[in-house]
């Protein structure tokens, strides 16, 4: 058993165990930290497969961005040290059963299928090759999706600001003149909150 194999199994164990802990622990802050380790394990698997650029992107975007964002939102919305409510036993049991059956079905299908790799020479996933193809406008280029994703990110940015904006009068973002009975008590809570 070579060192590479041992590292692979260690990374796999890190990813799966922390992933399982992230969805089962009742401390929400610990769940975020377990998610962090699971994402680091996946980045390690990308390094193991020698896709260094994707591994770096994984660490920068997920570990440095999304997990920090999740931790901030936990601080904003949860009271510290409070446990998540316990789930009904039946719900947990049937969810576990459904997940296990799905996994078994998928793996049976995968193991029955033989994947035949291509015989052509490999392209190294270097940053130069990635950049050339990313902005290429020929048949294999990805210039159009690149531009579409940049528009999507701009839309998401503006959308986040509009959604999370606290309006000056304390009114929840809703269409003017369509305040129904259900929404009114919510506005009252908001107004008392802003007075306090």
């Amino acid at each position, binding site marked *: 058993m070579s060192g590479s194999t041992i590292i692979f199994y260690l990374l796999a164990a890190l990813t799966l165990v922390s992933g399982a802990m992230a969805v089962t622990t009742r401390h929400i802050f610990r769940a975020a930290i377990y998610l962090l380790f699971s994402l680091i394990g996946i980045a390690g698997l990308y390094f193991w497969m020698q896709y260094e650029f994707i591994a770096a992107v994984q660490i920068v975007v997920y570990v440095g961005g999304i997990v920090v964002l999740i931790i901030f939102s936990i601080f904003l919305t949860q009271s510290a040290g409070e446990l998540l409510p316990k789930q009904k036993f039946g719900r947990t049991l049937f969810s576990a059963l459904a997940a296990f059956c799905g996994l078994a079905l998928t793996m049976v299908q995968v193991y029955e299928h033989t994947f035949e790799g291509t015989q052509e020479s490999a392209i190294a996933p270097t940053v130069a090759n990635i950049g050339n*193809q990313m902005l290429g406008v020929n048949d294999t280029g990805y210039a159009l999706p690149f531009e579409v994703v940049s528009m999507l990110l701009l839309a998401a940015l503006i959308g986040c600001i509009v959604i999370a904006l606290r309006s000056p009068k304390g009114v929840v973002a809703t269409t003017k003149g369509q305040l129904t009975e259900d929404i009114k008590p919510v506005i009252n809570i908001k107004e008392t909150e802003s007075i306090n």
Partner: protein
Amino acid sequence: MTLEPGLYHILFISAALFFIGVFGFFTRRNLITMLMSIELILNSVNLNFIAFNKYVWPNRLDGLFFTIFVIAIAAAEAAVAIAIIINLYRSHQSIDVDRTTELKY
């Protein structure tokens, strides 16, 4: 099935991670933990793309590009979802999905 890690091992990790995420999505009732489950699911998909790129079509980089775009879209999705969650918490003082029934009106 050998002990030497290859495509099938990575596919197993990816499938297991996917269904861990599905299990979390079924059992959790807090919006932030449900978002964490979605992140796990998206990451398992990325792992699949990279594994197929490396072991089945190493002469192309398409799997890698799909992974990059999925990461970008997942980041945008997480940001919008957290903005909605914080707004929901402001108006309902709770982010439990069982208690947010007013959202549909």
